[in-house]
């Protein structure tokens, strides 16, 4: 596997996997028909893979392939929104702290350190039911039900601190480069220096970090859904595993129900990892 990656084949496979997942997330209905529910379930409960149901059925007879493809959308959307929020918070925080330096920097980094220590998953466990009970459970926001928006926000506000640290240290070193001094001497404002001179130089760092943040977001979303904080009307891969666990399918040996959603997660995570490793190598080749 490692040696395949060196050949570049790993990256191609990774890109293909992610492409397939994105297609599944965009047009699930075109691939496997509308999301099945208890009423529209097409098979017998807990039946193993067959010609009619390639990946078997769940405890109420829904097709596992149908569920898995539809779940791609929610897993990816939640991960994408949560990591965007986390990256935006972390980048803004890091750039401001690194650019301001001095006391502001010290204070802001203390706050970041605090969030770094906070147990993100436990905090999410505590905040999610609270926020779900306080907010309504009706309608959708940007295609996600409110309970899932809560998950997005919880992941976002608990996972930005690592990004803030990395961005800050890079900003500190950029700030002392001659081009920043030159820009200041010709009268550029702080906002202009940050937007035109510092942020563009942070892009590659931010992209590499975004991939790792997406992975972290997928993990937290999966774990939260697995303990029952997902939304039954918009299942994700974690939600599927929650129902598989509730139905006792691991102990009953219903491997198709357990393996499928988990394998999808592993494929996406490993693909994202191999792409993030690809980043720095590709850049180095370009500059030399």
């Amino acid at each position: 596997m490692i040696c395949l990656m060196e050949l570049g084949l790993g990256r191609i496979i990774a890109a293909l996997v992610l492409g397939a997942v994105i297609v599944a997330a965009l047009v699930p209905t075109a691939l496997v028909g509308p999301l099945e529910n208890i009423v529209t379930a097409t098979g017998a409960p807990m039946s193993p893979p067959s010609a009619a149901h390639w990946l078997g059925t769940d405890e109420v007879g829904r097709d596992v392939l149908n569920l898995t493809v539809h779940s791609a959308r929610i897993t990816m959307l939640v991960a994408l929104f949560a990591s965007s929020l986390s990256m935006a918070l972390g980048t803004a925080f890091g750039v401001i702290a690194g650019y301001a330096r001095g006391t502001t920097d010290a204070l802001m980094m203390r706050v970041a350190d605090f969030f770094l220590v906070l147990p993100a998953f436990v905090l999410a466990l505590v905040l999610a039911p609270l926020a779900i009970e306080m907010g309504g459970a009706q309608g959708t926001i940007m295609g996600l039900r409110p309970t899932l928006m809560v998950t997005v926000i919880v992941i976002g506000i608990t996972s930005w601190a690592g990004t803030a640290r990395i961005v800050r240290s890079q900003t500190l070193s950029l700030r002392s480069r001659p081009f920043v001094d030159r820009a200041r001497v010709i009268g550029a404002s702080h906002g202009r220096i940050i937007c035109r001179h510092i942020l563009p130089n942070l892009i590659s760092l931010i992209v590499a970090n975004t991939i790792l943040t997406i992975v972290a977001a997928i993990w937290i979303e999966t774990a939260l859904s697995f303990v029952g904080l997902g939304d039954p009307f918009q299942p994700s891969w974690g939600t599927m595993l929650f129902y598989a666990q509730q139905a006792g399918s691991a102990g009953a040996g219903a491997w198709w129900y357990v393996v499928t959603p988990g394998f999808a997660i592993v494929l996406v995570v490993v693909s994202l990892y191999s792409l993030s490793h690809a980043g720095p190598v590709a850049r180095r080749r370009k500059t030399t």
Partner: protein
Amino acid sequence: MFLLRKLASAILTIFVISALGFFIFRAMPGDPERMLIGAAQGITPELLAQIRARWGLDAPLFPDQFLSYILSLARGDFGYSFKFRGETVLGVIGPRMMPTLLFVGTAQVIAMVVGLWIGSRAGWRQGSILDRFGSSLALAAYGMPTFWLGMLLLIVFAAWLSWFPVTGLANIEQTNNFQQWLGIAWRSVLPIATLAIAQTGQYVLLMRAAVVEVSKEDFVTTARAKGIGSNAVLRRHVTPNARLPIVTLISLNVGFILAGAITVETVFSWPGLGLLTVEAMRARDYPVMQALFLIFAVSIVLANLVADLLYARLDPRVSR
């Protein structure tokens, strides 16, 4: 001085976390008095006022209620559980402590020993068979959700091979003879193996990267040039330096270890703090959740403190 500074910052963090806990749980839906009384009928305003006065809920949130909260925390008083009526939070949490410590501790020791050994060998001889297999397996183990690995092990070893029972240890306290202890030890193999495998993956990847980084250093070339054997260079020159970044990374990952433990306990119905967290969350048992949140947060802060001190010991340059 270094030690004092770290200690002070740890204490400050714990205080802020406690304050955060107070305000999060005060924002919980449902007034505390309604939670205490339940849906009882015929509560007159006078009775309600009496109850509020008795529980100190008529005092201002800040500073009165906040101060009494901090004081009771300092005394180790977390209040009463909603779900288990009449029991104190400590009484609910206490018996769950030991199973989790045993579970997480054993898995960590196994993962550290195996993972660091494989990782250093793999990094030292890049491209070797051990490196290719070890790194690929480690990436896979690291990439999968820990609880999913547990479910897979359950399918293979409990459902198919029937080596292990499907259920966890429901009654760990009622054991007194050797036979029962053996049974418990046997049942704990799968959950511990799950957490250990997942963590091993992480340690292999971290240690491999650290060893690769250190072996590029000049002093490694010098040691080689002096004619020291390859294994001795790895043991005496590379590994001690590679340990440094590992310590930091592990301390940052304690949160993930906890998340893994919570979900794995759910899979195996392991009667520890993780399963209790999920049960309390489902029953909206806020006092228990609050106490668990504080326990987890404080243990992460302490782990970070230990890592800092360990780092200073392993690398004397830091404390200067």
